[in-house]
């Protein structure tokens, strides 16, 4: 999706958001089995340039989280909101935790990817929803 304000499309990242919205989330795996997120041409672990798209596991586990009350301007109307790091096995992701009371979020919570939007800007945001 091209950003309406800047006219910029981020190859790899926007493609990943598109695929994830269609239920086809993926990560990149190198010849040595290291996982990473697009866009990449080189495995950051071993330097392999042989990367292929592999389906992302359907669920992940929250490793740590925070509730942000002082946001950047791009999330002004969203605050307070929860951000978490979730481990999906071969890769981990940072996203906003949605569909749950902020007080109920805890480390170890099992989540699935759900692309959501910023209330402030309407732009797409990586989200995690409890399963």
């Amino acid at each position, binding site marked *: 999706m091209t950003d309406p304000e800047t006219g910029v499309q981020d190859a790899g990242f926007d493609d990943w958001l598109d695929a994830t919205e269609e239920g086809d989330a993926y990560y990149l795996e190198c010849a040595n089995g290291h996982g990473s997120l697009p866009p990449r041409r080189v495995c950051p672990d071993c330097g392999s340039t042989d990367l292929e798209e592999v389906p992302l596991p359907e669920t992940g586990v929250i490793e740590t989280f*925070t509730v942000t009350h002082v946001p950047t301007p791009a999330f002004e109307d969203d605050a307070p909101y929860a951000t978490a790091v979730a481990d999906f096995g071969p890769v981990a992701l940072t996203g*906003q935790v949605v569909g749950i009371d902020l007080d109920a979020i805890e480390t170890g919570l099992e989540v699935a990817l759900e692309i959501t939007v910023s209330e402030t800007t309407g732009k797409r945001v990586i989200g995690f929803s409890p399963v």
Partner: protein
Amino acid sequence: MSNVRVAGVGLTPFGSTPERTGRDLFAEASIKAFEDSGVPRDDVDALLYGNFMGELSEHQGHQGPLMAEAAGIQAPATRYESACASSGAAVRDAVMRVRNGEDDVVLVGGAERMTNLGTAGATESLAIAADDLWEVRAGTTFPGAYALMAQAYFDEFGGEHEDLAHIAVKNHENALTNDKAQYQRAIEVADVLEAPQVSSPLGLYDACPISDGAAAVVLTSEEYADEHDLEAPVAITGTGQGGDRMALHDREHLARSPAAREAGAEAYADAGVDATDVDLAEVHDCFTIAEVLALEALDLEPIGEGITAARDGRTTADGETPINLSGGLKAKGHPVGATGASQIAEVAKLLAGTHPNSSAVEEATTGVAHNAGGTVASATVHVLEVVE
């Protein structure tokens, strides 16, 4: 190999001066550094200058030559950008240039103008030290990223917000005598615990302020210092730098700082010292949890135990290893591009006996400065020792 002497240091007051330009701030710091050193401007071989958000706060790139002009020197000048470790990285390169004989005299420092952006603008500008695609667009702020590390630390090693509050209280206490500090006022543990939340578990008093300020340091070779009879009793004897993956979620540990560990080990080995030799340190406490992670990465505290260091008095001014006697970023302030060089200035003064808090460390011979960029994807560590 020549020891690299700290010939003079200069700091502006750190604080809120939104009307002052970066060039004005750096000019003031450099004037003080030249006065302190007694080194003539004509002898400067290079300026290495740290700055992070100049394009956003002042619409100004290419700041190296601009700052050479501001400092009144005719020498090649380069800007270093490594987020909040910008001038730490500049110091490291300055040390290496003097050591290898390339330069005899280097002016190194940094400046940052931040308060003119306002809180929201500064928050947005600081956030770009994180991965824009995979962290910032998910709503990660800088306090938010450190909050993720704080929560991970609590989950892995235990500890609570009250432990962190003691770090803030300690650093405010240390800043009371520092006339360059942004906050020269004491706070209580209750103030920290009752402050508005920024990003749980961190509140307003767990965070360093948004600051304007500049720092400048004149470094010389040992030969130059001897030839010119400089009063420069402190040398930078060790330098190290470490790196890590940009995004927090791509790291092996969410509650440790391997980049700082790598930088510290390299700097200790370079100086021929170890953590037991360290008498004092200035560490990068942009948030209270950051001081904990720094102490553990530098082996000044065992992994998982740094959380109680301030509370139990091990790092207070009267403790065994005083940490952030300047007030740290937390109370002294954090004009990001100036911070690394300002830490070198504070450690040098503490060791030379010219700092208001030197009386807390009268016998000290070895100090450490730890400067971190982003969520510690970059880190530099320097060892300073009394050599005369």
